[in-house]
């Protein structure tokens, strides 16, 4: 498999300024030593609760923000690997069209004063496709790709439902033949009956176009339906990364186990004894010492408070950040009954 993206030791620390002079009082380690790869045609999902750093990670990769340190190696259409982390705005420009984004809210991400043809055609125009006829032809192709009728070309976004708007957003993202799509909660604002259509569309487009997806989501059920691999984040760090089936069936990190256990299963006969985590997600300004998860972990020992665990490979493609990983036997979704 050809690697499209390789992230190495990515860090993003936000300074917290205090007082009149704006002295830096502390740093929020929003992303702290995150590494992963994504291949062509593959979906990697980043999951975790609010404040875990999943969105910050995706914004670093798109260089919407500049990472504090680390490498973001992107293999573009030229086949050459480029470290995006250190590039200037100008150097980034030719790469931007190869990595595109699908947004969460289809209501605020489309300009209400532009027609559908203009919205989808804009990235083409900006990138030099000035001939109207060629551009319109490409827009028509894109509409077909996302299964919207041609008749919609001259309408405005307000005339569309959430699902149709999300299709328009996807068409716009695909306009410049990107190799990587970053999708941040692309279906979480949609109704269930529409969500399924968009999930299937994203799967079909990936198969047809060989797209690599970085899928950022909090809903583990949706993640199960789209991902080849899943990375679970907690307070800025990846605590477990594994192929989808392994992560859901045989999780090896206590946080993953608790997260899976908390997902309500749509079957009243499976009302499970949940692992209810105490307290809240740790404050990233003052993360707990040692393993960040130890205050909420039901398997924590004294050493978890002191020693910081490393991300260790426990099976092929399955890495876990837990000191007790060799001793624990955790249950996955199938065991909930």
């Amino acid at each position, binding site marked *: 498999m050809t690697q499209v993206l390789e992230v190495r030791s990515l860090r993003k620390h936000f300074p917290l300024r205090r007082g009149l002079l704006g002295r830096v009082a502390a740093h929020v380690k929003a992303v702290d030593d995150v590494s992963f790869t994504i291949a062509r045609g593959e979906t990697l999902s980043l999951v975790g*609760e609010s404040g875990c750093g999943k969105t910050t990670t995706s914004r670093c990769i798109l260089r919407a923000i500049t990472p504090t340190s680390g490498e973001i190696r992107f293999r573009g259409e030229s086949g050459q690997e480029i470290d995006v982390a250190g590039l200037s705005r100008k150097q980034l420009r030719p790469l931007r069209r190869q990595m595109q984004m699908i947004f969460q809210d289809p209501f605020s991400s489309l300009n209400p004063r532009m027609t559908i043809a203009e919205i989808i055609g804009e990235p083409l125009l900006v990138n030099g496709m000035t001939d109207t006829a060629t551009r319109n032809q490409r827009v028509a192709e894109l509409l077909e790709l996302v299964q919207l009728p041609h008749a919609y070309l001259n309408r405005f976004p307000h005339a569309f439902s959430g699902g149709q708007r999300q299709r328009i957003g996807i068409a716009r993202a695909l306009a410049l033949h990107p190799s990587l799509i970053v999708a941040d909660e692309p279906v979480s604002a949609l109704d269930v009956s529409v969500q399924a259509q968009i999930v299937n569309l994203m799967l079909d487009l990936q198969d047809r176009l060989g797209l690599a997806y970085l899928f950022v989501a909090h809903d*583990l059920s949706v993640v199960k339906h789209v991902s080849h691999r899943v990375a679970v984040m907690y307070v800025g760090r990846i605590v477990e990364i594994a192929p989808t089936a392994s992560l859901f069936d045989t999780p090896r990190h206590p946080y993953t186990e608790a997260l899976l256990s908390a997902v309500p299963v749509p079957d009243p006969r499976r009302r499970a004894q949940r692992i209810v985590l105490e307290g809240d997600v740790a404050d990233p300004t003052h993360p707990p010492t040692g393993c960040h998860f130890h205050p909420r972990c039901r398997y924590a020992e004294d050493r978890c408070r002191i020693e910081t665990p490393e991300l260790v490979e426990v099976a092929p493609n399955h890495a876990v950040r837990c000191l007790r990983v060799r001793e624990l036997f955790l249950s996955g979704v199938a065991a909930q009954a």
Partner: protein
Amino acid sequence: MAEPILQVRNLHTHFFADEGVVRAVDDTSFDLFAGRTLGIVGESGCGKSVTARSILRIVERPGRIVSGEILLRRADGSVTDLVKLPSDGLEMRAIRGGEIGLVFQEPMSSLSSFHSIGNQLIEAIRLHSSLSKRAARTRAIELLALVGIPRPSQRVDAYSFELSGGLRQRVMIALALAAEPRVLIADEPTTALDVTTQAQILELIRRLQQERALAVILITHDMGVIAEMADDVVVMYLGHEVEKGPVDAIFHAPRHPYTRSLLRSIPSVLAAPRARLATISGSIPHPFARPPGCPFHPRCPDHIRGVCEQSFPAEIVIGEDHVTACHLYTTVGARLPA
């Protein structure tokens, strides 16, 4: 079974906008019992929240209850029709937040950031009782402890913005319980929360319900939450209840094509990785453009031509306490879905 504590009978709540009339709730009826949870589930625009707001008599203009009854059995055994009470009258204000507690989705916007959570609790307690300020403060601390807020005697002086989302929702629940209600209406109480926090809040609602024999109306779009919490379920689509019944029947023997399609289309952690989802074609129609006949017919996989677009289906009993409104079960020769 005991007498229902709340009975909604043929409720119609319509919104009279310039563009036309939106029949947000169109003929809804259900019974609510002490110690049981009624789940109302549906997608946007189905009328689940307007149903809750109708019961509390807080439907905003241009909406109003056009007809129907909302019968509340009082502590003394008498029955009051809430529809007949003036919405801002003394009696309705005593019931709202008194006998019927409510929890909303957005704990940030439902709590004031100018008053400490203690003062908001004390206000709610004293509004519905004759406790002194000092006694109300003690009661406020007890309520915070009851909903599982750590260090309640210190947190009572905190402001809502100092608390996490989960703690704020716990404060909302404490507020709802301030006047010892017998009915609790929770409208999407966990939608804004992370999944582990959601599990905590659902656990809390379940524990409080058992301890106090509360009757709970849980409104959500999440079938998983319904499966986890509800005893009885009402499924709504575009203002209509399309199916209602015991939770096990709704999930294991759903009869209305909408319920069946909805259940098939929800993603599940139990599915095979990268499994395609079953879809419902089209999207939810705009409320001003409600299809004639059965409102689900344009998206229905079992649509009977010449019947479903003609008339609205009547409700039919299809099992114990299990009712659906669908032509499939009343039309001679209709092919029933497997």
